[in-house]
């Protein structure tokens, strides 16, 4: 698998004119946010006369850098930096101050999470008289002390006469009032310890430290360990050397520590140490040191897999090299960084090399990060490149920093390089801020990052993931193209959706593997479960270092919309009983999706909705359905009702008010019932017209005299009868003039005219008698009867006359 290497000259563009010897570098990557990186070097403040000193800061993963005064104090000498594992606190161990007395030089342990440049770091602790403070830090991941920052500043303390390896540690370094403890690591009788002391801390509480013990017999490379964060009852006593019974296992003895008596390519060689613990296994630890034998200074790498008790033989030896750094990635890859002088004077070169191995150098890959002249620029001071450099791992990536001749020459950087400062790589010239004035070559800090080539999820979906309008109950499919835009293989382990409305494809067997540049199309289905706008996220989980890739999708399930239309506002107008009126109730789907109608009911027995055998009814977008509503009244007057339509419209049920007027028949009677005088014994008749002058049929149920009277008869009475509007029926009223004295009689007409259900008419007649003396037998011919005219022969006294016509 190829590796991706980035090398960046850290001098910012604003400092294009600088010519400092920016040596002795250190680097810290924030594990919680690897985009945030801090670097240190012997770079002076950008402010004239500043009482502060700067650090390099990047918030884009090391691609660009700023210089900011973050350290209170100047001039700064040795310094190192390291972030805690969590929380974003940066810790620094810094020597600073002027004067000829090193005993007065300050050794500060500093802390900050503010990199704005507006404030300097907070002092956690301060003492004096120390050398090479080298910081290690982590954060307690769990347990009662979870979240506490544990900081270990390994150094060479000049206070005691034997100048011992020392660790200043804080078990709660992120506390407002953090405290530190100074622990002497050296347990042997020594003339002194070497300049470098290096520590490594594992999140399980294992803390290692390595240093040189120097006795008259020579130096030994020693490693000590504490299994409780350096807080054991007898700190750092976990490893006892089996040879001398002293604290710390001697990894190598009879080491010739040059103590700065040696120079390689203008670089003094004090001594070198590096240590790294496997982040996945605290028992696995590597150490590198330098040894001058037979005038050849050589770096050695050894390994322990039993927490430092026993050690391998030399896994790797590099002659004429210095500034080692070790780091182990989360997948167990060991990185070994060093700077080696190659060639012969005066053409010697400094090569900065990163070797990588999964097999303790059984096989390995070497990347030359820089290959620059060793004799230029001339040394301004020592150390030329620095007494150390730095490398660490975060995840599967290595991050590091080194110094080198800054000639803008691509040949010097086999894996490429990026300059922020002005430089012309064609003429191999550094340029000042004016882009014209040439700037002398100097020593600059270089940042590098090495990551395994990985796949990178790149996706494409139409309309930026908008599925548009999709009706509930239906679906729409869109193609999501997943492309591997990275340099390495991509392994997709899941594709999931945050919303049940968006269906991710079913994959029978994960992982889905894509080579660089390969792509697959998968179908994402939008099947809304509810109405309205819907958003969701399709998450593609893979080994893309950027983490899960999220595709935002959206769609709208339009709301069904049913509109009801009925003429005249639901007024059916006058409708007679016995008849009916139909009005169409129009159901219109005015939305974008089908509407289902599950019921139409009427609240009134006089308004009828059609019988629908099977619900629901379905109406497509824009469709209309005319539903006949029948008004069939059963009683007179204003009749009202409500038609209720139940549908899939969220506004359902919809109600429509209906009404109708039910008129009646109207009774009208014409004709005179005033007979006047009728010759005795004669008959007189009048015809009475009983009419319906209303809009509806009139039911005349009875036409009769109120009381039976022998003188009055109805002849051919057609009633009861129903009179249609405008129709009349006549009834003949006969008077038989036989009564001696006039007697009033009342004709009663009964109908369903609500205004006059019973109409009473007075019929008036009297008998005109001739002189008549006897009346008992009513012998009209003898006593008073008049000869009748016309029908007068029908004598009213005819006893044979019955009541046949009376009703």
């Amino acid at each position, binding site marked *: 698998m190829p590796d991706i290497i980035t090398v960046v000259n850290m001098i910012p563009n604003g400092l294009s004119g600088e010519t400092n010897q920016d040596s002795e570098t250190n680097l810290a990557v924030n594990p919680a946010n690897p985009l945030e990186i801090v670097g240190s070097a012997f770079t002076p403040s950008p402010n004239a006369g500043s009482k502060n000193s700067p650090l390099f800061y990047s918030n884009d993963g090391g691609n660009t850098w700023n210089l900011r005064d973050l350290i209170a104090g100047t001039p700064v000498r040795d310094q190192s930096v390291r972030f805690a594992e969590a929380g974003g606190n940066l810790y620094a161990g810094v020597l600073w101050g002027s004067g000829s007395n*090193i005993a007065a030089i300050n050794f500060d342990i500093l802390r900050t999470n503010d990199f704005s440049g507006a404030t300097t770091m907070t002092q956690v602790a301060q003492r004096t008289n120390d050398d090479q403070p080298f910081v290690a830090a982590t954060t307690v991941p769990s347990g009662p002390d979870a979240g506490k920052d544990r900081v270990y500043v390994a150094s060479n303390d000049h206070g005691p006469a034997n100048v011992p390896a020392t660790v200043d540690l804080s078990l709660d370094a992120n506390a407002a009032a953090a405290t530190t403890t100074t622990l002497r690591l050296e347990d042997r009788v020594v003339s002194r310890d070497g300049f470098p002391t290096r520590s490594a801390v594992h999140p399980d509480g294992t803390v290692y430290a390595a240093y040189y013990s120097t006795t008259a017999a020579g130096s030994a490379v020693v490693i000590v360990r504490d299994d409780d964060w350096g807080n054991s009852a007898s700190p750092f006593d976990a490893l006892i050397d089996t040879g001398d019974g002293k604290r710390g296992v001697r990894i190598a003895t009879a080491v010739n520590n040059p103590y700065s008596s040696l120079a390689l390519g203008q670089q003094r060689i004090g001594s070198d140490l590096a240590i790294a613990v496997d982040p996945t296994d605290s028992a696995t630890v590597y150490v590198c040191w330098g040894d001058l034998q037979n005038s050849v200074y050589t770096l050695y790498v050894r390994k322990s897999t039993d927490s430092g008790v026993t050690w391998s033989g030399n896994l790797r030896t590099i002659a004429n090299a210095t500034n080692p750094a070790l780091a182990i990635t989360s997948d167990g890859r060991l990185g070994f960084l060093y700077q080696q002088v190659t060639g012969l004077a005066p053409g010697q070169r400094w090569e900065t090399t990163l070797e990588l191995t999964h097999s303790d150098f059984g096989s390995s890959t070497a990347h030359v990060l820089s290959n620059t002249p060793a004799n230029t620029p001339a040394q301004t001071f020592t150390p030329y490149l620095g007494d150390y450099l730095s490398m660490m791992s975060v995840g599967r990536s290595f991050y590091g920093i080194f110094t080198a001749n800054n000639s803008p020459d691509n040949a010097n950087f086999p894996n490429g390089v990026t300059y922020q400062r002005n430089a012309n790589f064609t003429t191999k010239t550094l340029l000042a801020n004016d882009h014209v004035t040439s700037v002398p070559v100097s020593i600059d800090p270089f940042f590098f990052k090495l990551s395994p080539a990985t796949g990178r999820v790149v996706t494409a979906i139409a309309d930026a993931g908008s599925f548009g309008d999709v009706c509930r109950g239906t679906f729409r499919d869109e193609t999501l193209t997943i492309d591997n835009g990275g340099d390495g293989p991509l392994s997709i382990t899941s594709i999931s959706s945050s919303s049940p409305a968006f269906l991710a494809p079913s994959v029978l067997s994960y992982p889905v593997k894509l080579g660089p540049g390969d792509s697959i199309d998968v179908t994402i289905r939008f099947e809304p479960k509810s109405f309205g706008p819907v958003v969701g996220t399709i998450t593609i989980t893979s080994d893309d270092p950027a983490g899960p890739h999220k595709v935002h999708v959206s769609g709208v399930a339009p709301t069904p919309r049913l509109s009801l239309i009925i003429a005249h506002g639901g007024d059916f107008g006058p409708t007679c009983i016995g008849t009916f009126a139909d009005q169409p109730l129009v159901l219109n789907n005015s939305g974008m999706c089908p509407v289902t109608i599950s019921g139409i009911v009427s609240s009134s027995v006089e308004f009828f909705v059609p019988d629908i055998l099977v619900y629901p009814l379905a109406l497509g977008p824009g469709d209309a359905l005319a539903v006949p509503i029948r008004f069939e009244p059963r009683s007179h007057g204003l009749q009202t009702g409500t038609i209720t339509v139940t549908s899939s419209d969220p506004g359902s049920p919809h109600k429509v008010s209906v009404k109708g007027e039910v008129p009646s028949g109207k009774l009208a009677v014409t004709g005179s019932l005033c007979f006047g005088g009728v010759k005795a014994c004669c008959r007189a008749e009048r015809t009475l017209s009983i009419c319906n002058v209303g809009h509806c049929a009139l039911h005349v149920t009875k036409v009769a005299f109120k009381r039976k009277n022998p003188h009055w008869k109805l002849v051919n009475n057609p009633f009861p009868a129903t009179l249609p509007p405008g129709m009349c029926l006549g009834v003949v009223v006969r008077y038989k003039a036989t009564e001696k004295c006039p007697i009033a009689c009342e004709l009663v007409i009964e109908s369903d005219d609500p205004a006059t259900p019973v109409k009473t008419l007075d019929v008036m007649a009297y008998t005109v008698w001739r002189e008549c003396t006897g009346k008992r037998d009513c012998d009209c011919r003898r006593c008073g009867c008049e000869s009748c005219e016309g029908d007068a022969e029908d004598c009213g006294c005819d006893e044979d006359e019955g009541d046949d016509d009376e009703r």
Partner: protein
Amino acid sequence: MSTNELVELVERAGFVFKGRPVAGERRDVESETPARAVTFTVDEVLRSADALRGLAGSEVIVVTEDAAAIADAAELVMFTVCTSVGDRVVTEEIGHRDASRRSIDEVREATREVSERPLRERAKTAELVVVGTVTGARRVEEPGLPRSEHDPDWWLARVAVDEVIKGPNRKNVDVLFANSNDIAWYRAPKLHEGTRGILLLHRGEEDELPREAPARAYQATHPLDFHPVERRANLERALSADGRER
């Protein structure tokens, strides 16, 4: 503003320049609100670290509490502190004044005063100031394990005194110097045989001196403790200003 106040302002300012606000340019500088950041074109750098002397003609961003007034000015002398130097130089204003010729002359004078102050103070504390020539030099300590990478590597120089500028007359004087080229000492004078110049000599604290050093030896360890004879005028000005410290 008094002269002393101006000097104090210049001393606090890490970057002093004459410049023009870029019309309409108020920039968002990270957490700073746009209203607080004004872009300037630098016309002349009046005081800076060496690396920023070439910024004339470039733009810098000034974060200021007085952005509205400053942005409308035609030209100003800005007293600032660099807070971030990246692709752009971002500074924070600690003062400003008009850019009249007189004003700039006063700033230049204050800048000179600030730059000469260390020499004046060093000369003031010098016990002996002489013009002399190094006639010999030797390592004081026997070679052995260094105590530190930052050891001074003490050497002792015998200096033949040509002239005493300050202090009692002497024909010869022994001077301890740090021969180390370490980051802590590389600016310290290296008084090897044949070196001639003006020496500002102090006596060191006992615990600073190697046991092998002569008890009454002087020290010349500060970068300002040695000057070429050509700079005698500067030194005499510093010495003469000794009695009228500001």
